[in-house]
């Protein structure tokens, strides 16, 4: 008898499995069990039949799987994922009781955490992509007996600022952004995030608001202007990108911050004079022309002329450097100002003194000019300028050991929930005056801020970017030939520019829906509105079939021929008139009226010739493979980068149009989302399906086993659906059934996001299926993406999953079962207000999970 059989026999002889029915399970608490008496028994009961020592399923034998160790950690992680996601035991096998499964899952996490602590650690359960590993039914349904929840809280922590937050914070020091204009609500204004530039790079620009002239084209401009890229790093992946424990600041980043701080301080003190010669600062560029360097200066800083109007904020740093000598008052003002501008809180006396001392020491060594700049730059590296603390150091623990955040920590947490810039006057006063200490205080401020349209809330948009991932399209590198085949332009950077524009357009559409604040998720998923640029006529257009394209070419040719004839007639007529007038003038050179008429006709002729020539060019470059969408509607604006590329910078102008009927439905059918979920050559049905599975259905996908060669065959003669047949192998299909049938309905669009009815000259197959969604009423076949979206957008489950994602984003961590009351309350708040995002946010931001911290919480490993 093998070991498994022995254990099983012993257990059967006891008559019960190790988890006693009267036992209580508390999520997050230590699982007081060991391998021999618990885990091994679980494996024997639920896994050994299929994963024994002979011909095990999936070639995975758990027969000899011993206690968790470094070598078998990968296997245990796979077991954890399968059991936690209820993939195993198989549906037709006897299932462990709920508590037993939870304990087994926790036990594995605890053991992996303990064993791997000094071997790179085990953090999979903390990864946002594993957030759905917590059972949705348990979070939103009734808990079975035996589960006892504890009042929730989040761990005390420091939260590193993101590159976007950091750049936006630094931008406040040197650039003055426009105030919110209610007449033009989409324009980028003060408080909005500094957007990525024309190429998708995040940069801080110096003095572009004063540039009145430059030499050369777009690249010359981009090279000549002073800009520094984001120094802090972050991964650009799909999904939630900023949990507090993701990032630190390495020494390279720190030294670069120090160096950039000096540039920023110089600009704060001297403005464009810190990056240009005095003669370049002139309201009339001609004055500079007289003295500018000779020769070709395109691409050089000396090619720029700045206006004399001071637009940067004039801060105590400016006043300090403007006045001769150094007074303690000026110095301290500068220190305190910078400290607050960079950390968003007032310095303590000790902190103020410390930095004052550093500056004085530097001045002593280097003199005022260099010493002040170097000394003040140290404040840019203060812990709280790079990490936001939520330590709960000043509160008293309640009976559960939780401390409620208060004062600046609470105020800054609330501020950070919505904003990238420092607290506004009212919140600042509330912090300073001791009015940020209670749940009611938080509710008051959150409701006030949410009601204030002029206060920009970039964190809200960030959430939707993390949720939808619609901001990644411009970073998907396209094969030029494959791109051309979609009907989109493959000329230069046109497609990438269009995608960065599309990101801004989708952002704006999201804002419009948030403004209505009704049925927010459903609206996002089903709106027929499109915020569009001119290029979107193609991207929202329809890719013609081969026959339609051929017909369009013939029609265009015919139209061109007719136009050529018309043009010829018109030109001939004009030319005749000119000749006639010239003859008349020859006969009577003094006839002023004739001369005038001749001049007019000549101008008309020249203009007509130009038009004819332009028409020829336009016709020659016409795109006959696309039926452009007829997009029209009121003008509006989208938030885009400002003057990063001279005349080629992104433009904010947009229209609010209606998408072609029957072809689009909501953001998931917009090119920004579709391209973000595509690859160089084709659609990415798996990624799209995964998005639906995880973010609308709340399902979890285990990691791809390392033994799997996750490649589709290279068969250009076959459709993506046909190539994806390889995922139907039993071994792959277990996971792929959760994704592929949800992603393939989007085959109604090609990989640039254009609507299509054929693929490889055959009618495109857009069918799919919702399988095992967790809500049987949703399951079933779907005709295409629109059909599927209509089904899902109306579902309670999708709304609840949306609430889970919002929880993760704003709490900065995955939910646990202890968070079930918070999630249920947030969902109810959303539901009771007909889908109000504001109500959802108020609920989340006044929840225990947001307000309370537990210090140095024991990790699973320590607990075990």
């Amino acid at each position, binding site marked *: 008898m093998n070991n498994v059989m022995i254990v099983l026999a012993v257990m059967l002889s006891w008559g019960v499995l190790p988890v006693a029915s009267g036992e209580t399970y508390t999520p997050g608490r230590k699982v007081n069990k060991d391998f021999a008496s618990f885990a091994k028994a679980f494996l024997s009961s639920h896994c050994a039949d299929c994963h024994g020592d002979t011909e095990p399923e999936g070639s995975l034998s758990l027969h000899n799987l011993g206690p968790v160790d470094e070598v078998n950690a990968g296997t245990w992680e796979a077991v954890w994922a399968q059991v936690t996601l209820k993939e195993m035991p198989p549906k037709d096998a006897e299932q462990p009781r709920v508590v037993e499964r939870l304990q087994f899952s926790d036990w594995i996490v605890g053991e992996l955490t303990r064993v791997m602590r000094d071997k790179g650690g085990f953090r999979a359960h903390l990864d946002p992509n594993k957030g759905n590993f917590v059972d949705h039914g348990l979070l939103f349904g009734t808990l079975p007996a035996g589960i006892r929840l504890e009042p929730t809280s989040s761990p005390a922590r420091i939260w590193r600022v993101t590159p976007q937050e950091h750049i936006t914070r630094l931008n406040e020091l040197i650039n003055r952004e426009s105030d919110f204009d209610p007449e033009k609500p989409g324009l980028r204004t003060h408080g909005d995030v500094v957007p990525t530039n024309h190429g998708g790079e995040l940069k801080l620009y110096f003095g572009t608001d004063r540039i009145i002239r430059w030499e050369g084209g777009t690249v010359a401009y981009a090279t000549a202007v002073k800009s520094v890229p984001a120094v802090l790093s972050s991964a650009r992946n799909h999904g939630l990108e900023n949990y507090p424990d993701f990032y630190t600041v390495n020494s390279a980043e720190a030294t670069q911050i120090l160096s950039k701080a000096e540039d920023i301080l110089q600009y704060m003190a001297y403005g464009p004079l810190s990056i240009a010669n005095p003669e370049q600062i002139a309201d009339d560029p001609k004055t500079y022309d007289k003295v500018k360097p000779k020769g070709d200066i395109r691409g050089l*800083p000396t090619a720029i002329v700045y206006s004399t109007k001071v637009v940067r904020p004039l801060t105590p740093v400016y006043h300090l450097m403007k006045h001769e000598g150094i007074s303690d008052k000026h110095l301290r003002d500068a220190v305190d100002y910078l400290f607050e501008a960079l950390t968003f809180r007032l310095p303590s006396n000790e902190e103020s003194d410390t930095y004052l001392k550093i500056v004085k020491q530097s001045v002593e060594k280097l003199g005022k000019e260099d010493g002040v700049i170097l000394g003040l730059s140290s404040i840019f590296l203060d812990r709280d300028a790079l990490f936001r603390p939520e330590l709960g150091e000043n509160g008293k623990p309640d009976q559960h050991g939780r401390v409620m955040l208060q004062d600046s920590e609470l105020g800054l947490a609330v501020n950070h929930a919505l904003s990238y810039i420092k607290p506004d006057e009212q919140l600042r006063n509330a912090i300073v005056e001791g009015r940020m200490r209670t749940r009611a205080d938080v509710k008051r401020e959150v409701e006030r801020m949410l009601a204030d349209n002029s206060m920009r809330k970039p964190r809200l948009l960030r959430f939707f970017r993390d949720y939808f991932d619609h901001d990644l399209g411009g970073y998907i590198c396209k094969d030029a030939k494959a791109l051309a085949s979609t009907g989109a332009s493959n000329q230069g950077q046109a497609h990438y520019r269009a995608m960065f524009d599309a990101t801004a357009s989708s952002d704006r559409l999201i804002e419009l829906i948030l403004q209505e604040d009704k049925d927010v998720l459903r609206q996002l998923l089903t709106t027929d509105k499109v915020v569009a640029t001119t290029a979107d006529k193609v991207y929202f257009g329809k890719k013609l079939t081969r026959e339609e394209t051929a017909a369009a070419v013939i029609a265009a040719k015919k139209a061109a021929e007719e136009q050529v004839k018309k043009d010829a007639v018109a030109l001939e007529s004009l030319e005749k008139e000119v000749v006639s007038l010239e003859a008349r003038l020859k006969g009577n050179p003094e006839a002023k009226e004739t001369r005038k008429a001749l001049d007019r006709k000549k101008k008309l002729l020249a203009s007509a010739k130009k038009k004819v020539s332009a028409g020829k060019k336009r016709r020659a470059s016409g795109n006959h493979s696309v039926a452009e969408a007829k997009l029209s509607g009121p003008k509006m604006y989208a938030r885009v980068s400002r003057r990063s590329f001279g005349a080629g910078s992104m433009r904010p102008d947009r229209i609010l149009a209606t998408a072609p009927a029957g072809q689009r439905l909501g953001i998931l059918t917009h090119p920004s989302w579709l391209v973000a979920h595509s690859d160089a050559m084709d659609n990415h049905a798996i990624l799209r399906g995964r998005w639906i599975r995880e973010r609308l259905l709340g399902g979890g996908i285990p990691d791809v086993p390392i033994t799997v060669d996750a490649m589709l065959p290279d068969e250009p003669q076959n459709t993506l659906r046909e190539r994806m047949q390889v995922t139907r192998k039993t071994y792959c299909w277990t996971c792929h059934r959760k994704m592929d049938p949800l992603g393939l309905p989007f085959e109604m669009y090609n990989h640039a996001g254009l609507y299509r009815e054929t693929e490889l000259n055959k009618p495109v197959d857009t069918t799919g299926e919702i399988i095992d969604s967790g809500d049987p009423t949703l399951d079933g076949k779907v005709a295409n993406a629109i059909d599927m979206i209509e089904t899902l957008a109306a579902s309670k489950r999708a709304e609840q999953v949306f609430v889970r994602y919002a929880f993760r984003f704003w709490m900065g961590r995955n939910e646990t079962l202890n968070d079930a009351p918070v999630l249920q309350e947030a969902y109810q708040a959303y539901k009771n207000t007909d889908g109000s995002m504001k109500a959802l946010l108020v609920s989340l931001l006044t929840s225990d999970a947001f307000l309370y911290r537990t210090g140095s919480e024991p990790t699973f490993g320590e607990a075990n």
Partner: protein
Amino acid sequence: MLNRRNMLHGMAAGVGATFGASLFPERIMASPVNNTNPRRIIFFMQNQGFDPATCVPKGMTSSGSLAKARLPEPIEALEPYKERLHIINGLHGMHTSPSHSAFFGALGGYRGSDGVPPSAPTIDYELSKVLPQTLLPHLCIGMDSIENMTTKPTIATLSASGAGQPIFMHSNPNHLYQMLYGGISTGDIRLQHEARSNVLNQIEKLAAANGRSLPTTDRQRYGQYVQGFKDVNGLRDRLDTVSDHLRKFAPAVDERYTKPEFETDWHDVLLDLGISALTSGITNTLTIGSGRGQIFGAWKGLGVEDQGHNLGHMKQPDNPIWIKIRQYNSRMLVRIMESLESVPEGSGTMMDHTLIVYTSNNADKQHTNGANWPVMLLGNFNGTFKTGCFTQLDGKRPINALFATLLRVAGQNIDRFNMNDQLARKFDTGTGPLKEVLA
């Protein structure tokens, strides 16, 4: 994953010449003579393209020895060194969008363009991770017009440690000198060094004090922040302790640093600093961006009055301007080789264990589709590369294949560099290293 090795390279990533391994002080002491398997690599990236007609000897259309060939005028300075030269024609970079520079894509082997952030690490950074560890794993220097170098003394356009993680290159020699040799400097540089040291020491103290009350779960993460300053400050201290060694290699500061007549004065001293970082053993990976990865740049000191974009619009073959620039590059390459040759290492010299990769971030010309990307290799990297020859490839393997070859030779067992199988089907007919260039 957070670990020490990653951390050190994280540091290199951000600064270009960042403070490296505090835990390897022996390297700097031992590097010139004791290391049994030392290797180093230099990337020299000239902007505006590298026309094959300016490097391939006339009449050479197929692979063969350079022994009897005469090198073209632009690179004639390399004639005495052609037994260690390998000219490669026929790699491609069509997937990198190199027109007007591929920027990060030139060393990354992926799509790049103005304003496009890096999408993966570049080859120089990857090599710096696998080559023998030094104090500064990776140093990047950039040469440009004097205005650009003054206004923007550090920029990042060519090297990256990962997606969205650019590595900055240094263009102000005074700053770079202070960073490398502040401890042995005098005068203003010394004062700057001392003041900066004081600030960094104070920041370290503050950072450490602010970490004491953190929860255990955050201590490791925040600890790296504090450790970063400890490393920066520790390195400075150690550089001070080996100041006698550094003095042998540190260039003398002269008026070219403080009062440059032309930008080429700064180009020259930046190169001196780069070479000294190699010869002193401070680093083993040097990236030189002549034109800083962009489509501008100036060489007035060579008598080239034109500057910037127009240089790229000119045809390079037989063009007096481009002959001057390429000759200047070639002289720089000779300086690197002679300097490395003058330092004994093992049974030979440093140059025996070095490879110089000379090419352009712009393929063969400014407006190009990247169908041809000429490269010159100098040195044999411990005898692993063929030398003294010209290799004509068929244009079907990408620059990534060369980069994969470099990584293979450096000890990484990889078949492709930054190119997945899907892209490879379109852009690479082969797999693994470029056999044609290996000895």
